[in-house]
Each structure stands twice: as structure tokens, then as C-alpha cells.
């Protein structure tokens, strides 16, 4: 039965081995679901968040995985709108990653809010001035788009394909993919930006507050840039990782190089703007709020090293590596650089979500630390497990890498 579900001509490990692989992840998912249940049934007192750390691990997770998931829309954009056909090799994988990231984020958000049953109020009484409204609307719409994008992939499963109605549906769905890719791009641009805006607009948090253009603070644009820079790197990294784990060649080497190059170019642009933005913040925005920007970095362990790590070590450095053709051709350099890019974007989101809240605003306030509770951590890990499971299942039963068969035969 299992074999009938595997795409013809692809080699997948025996079912027993596969089950053994997913077992720990299922266990982790189960634990996370229990933790999530605790949080829903008993309330958020199960977490270690508090009035000061009102956002914790989960919001960090949301921001990070949505940034990493940006590869889905951006690859779609490059493939369907800019016709970078080479990216066909990774688009399916990108869509799955995107779906995992976004659906994971939304599930966690549902646990994260105190009254999930009232979540729809945002749609009913939207406050259009709130970045969170923008995020909510865009993420929900984009998740729908991602589901629609994922559907053809599922329908191409060997068994499902046998059903004529689904086959026809998939065929036509695939034909309109460029429309969805376009809508997805539009939505993603907005919510990646809004996620940045989420913190950039916080006038009361001078560490995060940024000036900007119109209603959008600079973080709006920087988050878009960093997300689309990191997205391809994340796809590169996952593809490489899956390839290593499955011991199979999945895409042609030049696709990885292309992803690296795209990432490198965008990252360079991002680093440039981020540097400008930081300088403006140091010299203008923060002093105008009445704060000495370097005071923010006087609380150990969050010193200026964090700024350096974020912009130079995980920004400029990988950008240079990725833009260097020679280095890019060496898988070691390429993958390390992609890894640094991902770490960079994670660090950036960490700085905005956690460091912002840890810093005191009131003069008599203290610098606060926060350690997530096991329930939070388990829910977090459950999203990871969920991702691994969805990806593993997709990899096993769906045509994630169109070039795999070809590469196997050559």
C-alpha cells in the first residue's frame, strides 16, 4: 500500500525505517499538542510570559518562521512572475516549507492569544491602523493561497492522481498558479513588512521604534528585505539538508548556486539599508525619544556584540561569500553562508521580539529576563516536529523535487 503512494521511480526508505524516523517527531508533536491543550484549557498561566514579557518564545517563533517561510512566495514570484524557470526545481519544496511555516505560525498564534474564540473579532472590527490587523488579514489570506498552492502538489500523489476529477482539478489549478503566486507575493510583501512594522511602530519601545515612510516604519521594508534574502537561503539549506539526510541528489547544483546568488544580492541590499537605518536610529530616532542608543546595549548579555553579529557576521559576511562566484560553487561555503543568513534573520527577529521587551523603559524599572516554560517550549518544538512531519510525508509521497528522478537516472 505504502509503495503505491510513493511517486513512481523515486527511491524512498522502507516504511519501517520511515516510521522509525517519524516516531520521535510524532511523540514530540503529541507532547506539544498536550502542552497546547494545557495552555488553552488552563490559560496562559502555563507559560512563563508575563505582563512585561507579554510576547515570548511564540511570537519570536512566529516572526522567525514566517521570515524563513518567505522563500515560498519569493520563489513563486521569481518563477511565475519573473519566469526564472530554473527555480521549478525547488518551488514545490518551497511551497511546502511556506505552508509549514505559516500554518505553524497561525496554530501557535491561536494558542498564544488569550481568547482564541474571539480571534475572528479582528476581521469583524478591524482596526486598520494596527500592524497586527494587517498581519492577521494577510497571513490568513496567504495561508489560504498556500493551501491552494499546496493542493496540486498533494493531488499529484500517485494514488490521488488516479481519481480523474482530482486530476482535472489539479491540472487547471496548476494553470492559474501564476495568479496565486502574484496574490501571494502581494500579501507576503505586506505581512512580512507588517511584522516588521509590528515593532517599528512601538513608540513606547524606543529600542524598536523606527521612523519611516508614510504609515510604515523602516522596519517594514527591512523585514521584507531580510525575509526575501533569507527565504532562498532557507530553501537552499533545507534542500541541502534533505539531500544529505536522504542521501539523494534532489536538485541540480546550479539551482543551489542560483538560490545562493539571489540570497546574496538581496542580503547585500539589506545590509546596506539596515546599516543606514541603524545609523539613523543611533543618531536621530533614539536620541529624539530621549534615549542614548548605547544604553540599550549596556545590559548584559545583550551588548553591542549582538548588533555586530547581526549586521556583519550574519549579514555582510555571508553576502560577500554568496556574491563570490568561486566560493559559491563550493558547497561548503555556500551552505555555511546560507546558514549564516538564516541565523542572521533569526537573530534579527530575536533582537526585535525579545531584546525589545527585556529592556526597561521606565527609569526605575529593571532589565528583565525570561525563560520559556516547558509548555511554551513543547509547543514550539511541536511546530518544528509538525514541520518535519509534513515535510517528511510530502517528501515521501509527493513530487517535491522534479529533478530528483532525472538526477537519479543520470
Amino acid at each position, binding site marked *: 500500500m505504502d509503495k503505491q503512494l510513493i511517486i*513512481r*521511480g523515486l527511491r524512498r526508505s522502507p516504511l519501517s525505517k520511515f516510521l522509525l524516523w517519524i516516531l520521535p517527531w510524532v511523540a514530540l508533536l503529541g507532547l506539544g499538542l498536550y502542552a497546547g491543550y494545557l495552555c488553552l484549557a488552563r490559560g496562559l498561566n502555563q507559560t512563563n510570559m508575563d505582563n512585561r514579557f507579554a510576547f515570548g518564545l511564540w511570537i519570536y517563533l512566529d516572526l522567525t518562521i514566517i521570515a524563513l517561510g518567505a522563500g515560498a512566495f519569493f520563489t513563486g514570484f521569481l518563477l511565475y512572475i519573473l519566469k526564472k524557470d530554473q527555480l521549478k526545481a525547488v518551488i514545490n519544496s518551497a511551497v511546502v516549507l511556506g505552508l509549514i511555516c505559516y500554518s505553524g505560525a497561525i496554530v501557535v498564534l491561536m494558542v498564544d492569544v488569550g481568547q482564541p474564540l474571539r480571534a475572528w473579532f479582528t476581521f*469583524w472590527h478591524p482596526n486598520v491602523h494596527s500592524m497586527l490587523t494587517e498581519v492577521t488579514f494577510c497571513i490568513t*489570506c496567504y495561508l489560504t493561497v498556500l493551501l491552494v498552492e499546496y493542493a496540486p502538489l498533494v493531488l499529484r500523489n500517485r494514488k490521488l492522481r488516479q481519481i480523474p476529477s482530482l486530476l*482535472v482539478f489539479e*491540472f*487547471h489549478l496548476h494553470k*492559474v498558479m501564476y495568479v496565486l503566486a502574484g*496574490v501571494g507575493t502581494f500579501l507576503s510583501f505586506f505581512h512580512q513588512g507588517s511584522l516588521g512594522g509590528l515593532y517599528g511602530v512601538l513608540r513606547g519601545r524606543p529600542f524598536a521604534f523606527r521612523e519611516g515612510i508614510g504609515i510604515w516604519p523602516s522596519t517594514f521594508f527591512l523585514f521584507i528585505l531580510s525575509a526575501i534574502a533569507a527565504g532562498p537561503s532557507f530553501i537552499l539549506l533545507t534542500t541541502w539538508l534533505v539531500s544529505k539526510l536522504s542521501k539523494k541528489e534532489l536538485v541540480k547544483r546550479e539551482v543551489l548556486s542560483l538560490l545562493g546568488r539571489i540570497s546574496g544580492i538581496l542580503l547585500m541590499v539589506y545590509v546596506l539599508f539596515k546599516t543606514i537605518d541603524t545609523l539613523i536610529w543611533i543618531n536621530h530616532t533614539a536620541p529624539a525619544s530621549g534615549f542614548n542608543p548605547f544604553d540599550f546595549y549596556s545590559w548584559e548579555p545583550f551588548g553591542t556584540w549582538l548588533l555586530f553579529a547581526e549586521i556583519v557576521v550574519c549579514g555582510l559576511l555571508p553576502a560577500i561569500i554568496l556574491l563570490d562566484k568561486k566560493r559559491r560553487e563550493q558547497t561548503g561555503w555556500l551552505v555555511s553562508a546560507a546558514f549564516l543568513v538564516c541565523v542572521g534573520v533569526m537573530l534579527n527577529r530575536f533582537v526585535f521580539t525579545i531584546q525589545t521587551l527585556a529592556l526597561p523603559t521606565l527609569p526605575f524599572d529593571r532589565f528583565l529576563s525570561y525563560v520559556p516554560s516547558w509548555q511554551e517550549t513543547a509547543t514550539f518544538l511541536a511546530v518544528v516536529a509538525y514541520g518535519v512531519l509534513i515535510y517528511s510525508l510530502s517528501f515521501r509521497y509527493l513530487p517535491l523535487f522534479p529533478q530528483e528522478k532525472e538526477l537519479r*537516472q543520470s
Partner: protein
Amino acid sequence: MFPGVYGFTWEPGNLIFLGIFYSVVAIILGTMGIVLVRSLKDFQSQKADQIRWKLDFEDLPEGNRTCRHELTGEFRHRTCERGFDCRECPDHAKLVASKIRTIHPGYETGDEEGCILGFDMPLERQYHRGHTWVMTEPDGTTTVGLDDFGSRLIGEPDEVRLPAAGTSLHLNGTAWHFKKNGSDLRILSPVDGEVIQTGGKKAGWYLKLKPLGKKMDTRHLLRGAEIRPWLAREMERLEFSLAADGVGMSLADGGALVEDLSKEYPSLDWDAVWGQMFLEP
């Protein structure tokens, strides 16, 4: 969200935001609507098989889509774009009309009658790229069977699912199914036609068809001098497929293929090989 709901205002920001949102929703819903309508239409007009072949054909590696005229050496390199349906192909029509038909250099006449490269491939039959043969009977019906190459690939099938009499088959649609070792194999229909009688392996043929229109159109089928180069290419493909699984053997000069290849090499991913060879990737 709507006028009348608490919190709704007519201020521009609100209208722009909601306007964009409704547009996005409309686009998504509209697109999905279009997809649904198109799917429904195609499904009702029974284009599923056609679409399936179209998708399968697209999925075939480029090497598997070689034009018959490349096989015969008329082109150095040419890939079929039409799903092996030469009936509407202007180039094919032109080439046939010009009668400049170069014989493939590999063609040898030393074969026994009806035996090409060790396969029993009678020349009076016409062959489909999916390893079915077609023979027009004198009574105007058409017999369809699995060619020797195909038979040897499959060996003894576990199950044969033939269409009922009266079923309309379409070119490159599903003719019948084999089941073997848990794999489900779809055999492409080589022609358009209505099933009037079904046979089986023992009968030596599988289907008897009558044309859907006035006459059976077989322009797209391989014949005569095309068979040998095609078979040679098929052998290559087979070797290639097997090589991917680590079975290195040279079938081309090994003489005839054994009767049941899958029995010979049970450890191979036969499902994939069959998929490759019967054009269902």
C-alpha cells in the same frame, strides 16, 4: 468589516484597507471559481484521460520524448511536443509527403522475419510508443495487443483489467491495466476506438476495436523501418533504467530478452522501470 458593524468608518484608510482585502478575496475566490468551472467542464467532457496523458508526457524526461523522425535519422535531434500524436503534426505530414525517408544507419536486414533485435515484432503490425501493437483486420476491426518487448518486461501479470465491450478508447488514454507485484500498470491506448471484444495474454491479443469514426487513423503508429531504431532506443532506455538501480547489463548484444525479465531481477524497482517503459512516469 461592513458598514453597520461597530467600528466601521468611512475614513479613507479604512476603505483602502478593506478595499484591498476584498479585492484579494475576490481574486482568490474568482480564480478558484474559474478553476472549478474549467475542471467541471473538462471532467464532464471526459477529458481526464487526455489531460492525464498530457501531464504524463510533460513529466517524461526529454530523452523519452524523442520524435520518431529522430529515431529514423531524419533529424539529428528532435523532441516530440505533441504527446506522440503525429496525426496533427504538420512536420510529420510534410515528412511523410516528401517521402524522403532515410533509413536509420543501425537498421540491419539480417534479422529473421519478424524478429528484430531478438524480439518478435511482426512487420505487418504497427506499434505504439507505449508498447502496444495494432493490426487492422480484414473485417475492418482492429486488434490491439502488447508487443513482445512489453510482454517480456511484464512477464506473467498477476491481473489484467480489460475494458468492457462498448467502452470508447482514445489515443493515449487508458487501454487496460496490468497488475503485477503490487504495481498498477496503465497501458496506453494506441488508437481511438470502441472495444468490441477482449482477449488476453493467452489469446495473443487483448482488445478488438472498431473505429470511432469512419476509419481507424493509425498515422501516428510506428511501422516498418521505424521499428528497429525505436526498439534499439527502447533497449537503451531500459538499460538506462536498470542502470539507475545498479543493474549493469548490456541487453543490446545479449540477444533476446528473457521471457520474464522481472523474474530474473526481482530486486529491481520494476515499478519504476515499467513506468518508464510504458510511458507512465
